[in-house]
């Protein structure tokens, strides 16, 4: 089956739909940035976007290519220092939703972005923690976005960079964490949500065109499906047009400069 949209577009649209005008989002570069701005340009015009470079309530006309593009600062309500961003805004509990990617994820949405292999002698050295460990604990809830595959959706992480639901159950609460943690894992195939009891991420919606077998093949643990699994609504024309316009604008703006 050939779809009229790409897997990345589907992930972006699904992510955008989960946001509302009352959200204050901690936005990462790439897909999260596209999703948040798509939400802002469609159903969530009041959404507040914050990038960890310190830009608060920014309304970029084109997507930033780095976490600290001048465009983010130019269109922000104000820009604060990085220490203030991490203290008063993130740790201060003023963010409702954070987006995180991972190089590896496990069934409890713990993330690894540090190393593949042993820490002291890694086969692949990844970038490291960045803001992720504290984004995961301080934001009201977390959406994780990753393309699915057995190398990234693993049974056991090589390194726990970022604590999602830990060992599941009340593990977050036992560590004194009061935020919800990962409430959605949005992939190119489906949407996972935590089981209310075990906190294992289970499939609650499947994107049009994807199958349960595909999902099983792309997951390194025995994947579970919710009792009732929805089919993700296809992207609307408005969603796709707005997203493609945004990307086209971005390419035009950045293309000429280099």
């Amino acid at each position, binding site marked *: 089956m050939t779809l009229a949209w790409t897997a990345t577009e589907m992930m972006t649209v699904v992510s955008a739909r989960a946001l509302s005008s009352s959200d204050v989002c901690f936005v990462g570069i790439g897909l999260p940035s596209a999703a948040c701005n798509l939400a802002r340009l469609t159903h969530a015009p009041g959404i507040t976007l914050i990038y960890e470079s310190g830009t608060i309530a920014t309304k970029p006309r084109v997507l930033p290519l780095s976490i*600290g593009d001048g465009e983010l600062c130019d269109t922000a309500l104000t820009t604060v220092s990085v*220490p203030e961003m991490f203290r008063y805004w993130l*740790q201060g509990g003023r963010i409702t939703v954070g987006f995180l990617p991972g190089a590896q994820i496990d069934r409890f949405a713990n993330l690894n972005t540090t190393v593949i292999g042993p820490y002291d002698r890694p086969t692949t050295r990844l970038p490291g923690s960045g803001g992720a460990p504290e984004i995961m604990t301080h934001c009201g809830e977390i959406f994780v976005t990753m393309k699915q595959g057995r190398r990234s959706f693993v049974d056991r992480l090589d390194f726990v960079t970022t604590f999602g639901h830990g060992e599941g159950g009340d593990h977050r609460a036992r560590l004194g964490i009061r935020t919800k943690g990962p409430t959605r894992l949005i992939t190119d195939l489906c949407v996972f949500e935590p089981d209310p009891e075990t906190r294992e991420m289970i499939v609650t919606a499947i994107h049009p065109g994807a199958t349960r077998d595909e999902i099983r093949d792309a997951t390194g643990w025995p994947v579970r499906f919710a009792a009732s699994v929805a089919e993700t609504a296809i992207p609307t024309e408005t969603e796709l047009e707005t997203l493609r316009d945004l990307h086209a604008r971005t390419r035009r703006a950045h293309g000429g400069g280099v």
Partner: protein
Amino acid sequence: MSEVMSLHDAIAATVHDGDTVAIEGFTHLIPHAAAHEVIRQRRRDLALVRMTPDIVYDQMIGMGCARKLVFSWGGNPGVGSLHRFRDAVERGWPHPIALEEHAHAAMANAYAAGAANLPFAVFRGYLGVDLPKVNPNIRHVTCPFTGEELAAVPALRPDVAIVHALKADRDGNVLIEGILGVQKEAVLAAKRAVVTVEEIVDDLGPRSPNAVILPGWTIGAVVAVPGGAYPSYAQGYYDRDNAFYLGWDRIARDRDAFMAWMKANVLEQGPEVFARHRRRAAA
């Protein structure tokens, strides 16, 4: 009072072999020209500190300047890996490098603690993760009122901070605007500081009463290096050269290509080559 001097003299006077050096910049205002000068002067055994080591630290690591890296995110932003950094960590080339690895919250708080002359920083963090298992500089303190355990890391007090800013006046007072990063904290936390700026002006001009300014007496040396943040950017002067970041991936992947590039573009050049990037956006 800061002294206005040449970049060569400022680095020669400020950065010594074995120093702990923070060359900071958060996407905006990364002091590439100053880092190149450190490379040209063949500094060795540096402990390099930075929240977001990117191309400049990839270059310094690849050129063998660093014995240690204190950091929280090491990558080529929006592009991928830092290949020289990975080569050092994964294969010990040109020599092994020690890592002291943190999360952003820890580094940002540690700089602020250093600027405030505290021995450590306290914050809510590192819950449930593996980094404390491999970094003995992640410890805990207990709140004496609630009994809650919080994360603690040592304050960052580098020997030297190097940052790039927009402009300075003749007294060496430095203005930073736009994305601020941790540059003010890094300078105030360090024993010595070098600031490169796009221009030195008679007067900083009309500005907010609360403008972010580093007074001249907090800085050792101020050096005008127009374009000195390229390929990162200086707000109002020139834009980030995203193509350079993409292109760096290819250069840095290969040891020989990297060495050739460094020879042609750093070792055999001076800071004046950065001037061609100044005010490109405005032109």
